[in-house]
């Protein structure tokens, strides 16, 4: 009964969505000269970042990113609150083989450097704070699953997280302090396509990278450790 109802509902929904999507323009420049045109035209000269997506995320729509960081922070907080047991447990029963252990030990620092590369070069190449943070967290995950007793101090992680988050907000407030608006770029823009360019963008992305990395690592560790 429930199945039939669901299929009926999905059929109706799908039919209408399909009807709408059929009218959608695909592959043609239908918004010219909309918002996108303005972004593409001005980004390099006005923000100094080469990657337009990054400059939108961090600069034009930087407020969204602040919210996004907060969402991830919330998820981490909520998870650790929900999984809170007051006691810690051992992670796994079975040891990994020597090959996996040696391999992850070798790969771990390289993955961390890769993550650092991704978030430092956020304004030049694809990627940025979130991606870099996720890569770093994956590096830690590699160690967690290979070594039973690999331990990362939650104290340090949470300190890093708090500091990085505050740095983001404080960088935003600096703009207000200098008589401009919140999150406004108050640093020199630099020469496009050099590492030191884009004003605040790389700094914010480094803060975001640290924050996301610490958050996701803490999250994985909590999930792996608690409950049976």
């Amino acid at each position, binding site marked *: 009964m429930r199945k039939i109802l669901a299929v009926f509902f999905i059929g109706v929904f799908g039919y209408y969505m399909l009807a709408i999507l059929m009218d959608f323009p695909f592959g043609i420049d239908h918004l010219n000269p909309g918002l996108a045109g303005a972004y593409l035209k001005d980004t390099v000269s006005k923000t100094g970042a080469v*990657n337009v*997506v*990054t400059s939108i995320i961090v600069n034009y729509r930087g407020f969204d990113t602040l919210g996004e960081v907060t969402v991830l922070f919330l998820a981490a907080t909520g998870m650790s609150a929900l999984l809170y047991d007051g006691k810690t447990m051992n992670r796994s029963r079975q040891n990994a083989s020597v090959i996996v252990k040696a391999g992850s030990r070798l790969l771990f620092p390289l993955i961390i450097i890769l993550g650092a590369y*991704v978030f430092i070069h956020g304004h030049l190449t*694809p*990627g*940025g704070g*979130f*991606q870099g943070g*996720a*890569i770093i*967290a*994956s590096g830690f*995950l590699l160690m967690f699953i290979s070594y039973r007793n690999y331990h990362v101090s939650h104290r340090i992680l949470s300190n890093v997280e708090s500091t990085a988050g505050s740095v983001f907000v404080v960088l935003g407030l600096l703009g207000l302090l200098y008589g401009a608006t919140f999150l406004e770029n108050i640093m020199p823009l630099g020469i496009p396509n050099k590492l030191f360019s884009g004003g605040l963008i790389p700094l914010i992305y480094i803060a975001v990278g640290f924050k996301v990395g610490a958050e*996701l690592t803490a999250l*994985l560790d909590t*999930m*792996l450790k608690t*409950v*049976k």
Partner: protein
Amino acid sequence: MDYMSIIVIILAVLLILAAFFVIRSKDLVAAVVASAVVSLISSIYFYILQAPDVALTEAAIGVALTTIFFMITIRKTRRDEE
């Protein structure tokens, strides 16, 4: 019909089949593996659609992290769909 759209169509078929597999499979681990395939193909899609930033994010989050969250959850609960 150029070559690229043939590739896109093939990938679309694979994507939809993988999504079906996620829903149909009785074994949750297999479903999670299939969702990794969905994420893999959508990552190729983002790449073809000239969105390397998004493709990178999907690769970083979809393939590794989300999958791992699901695996940990299955490890802590149970594997079969009753």
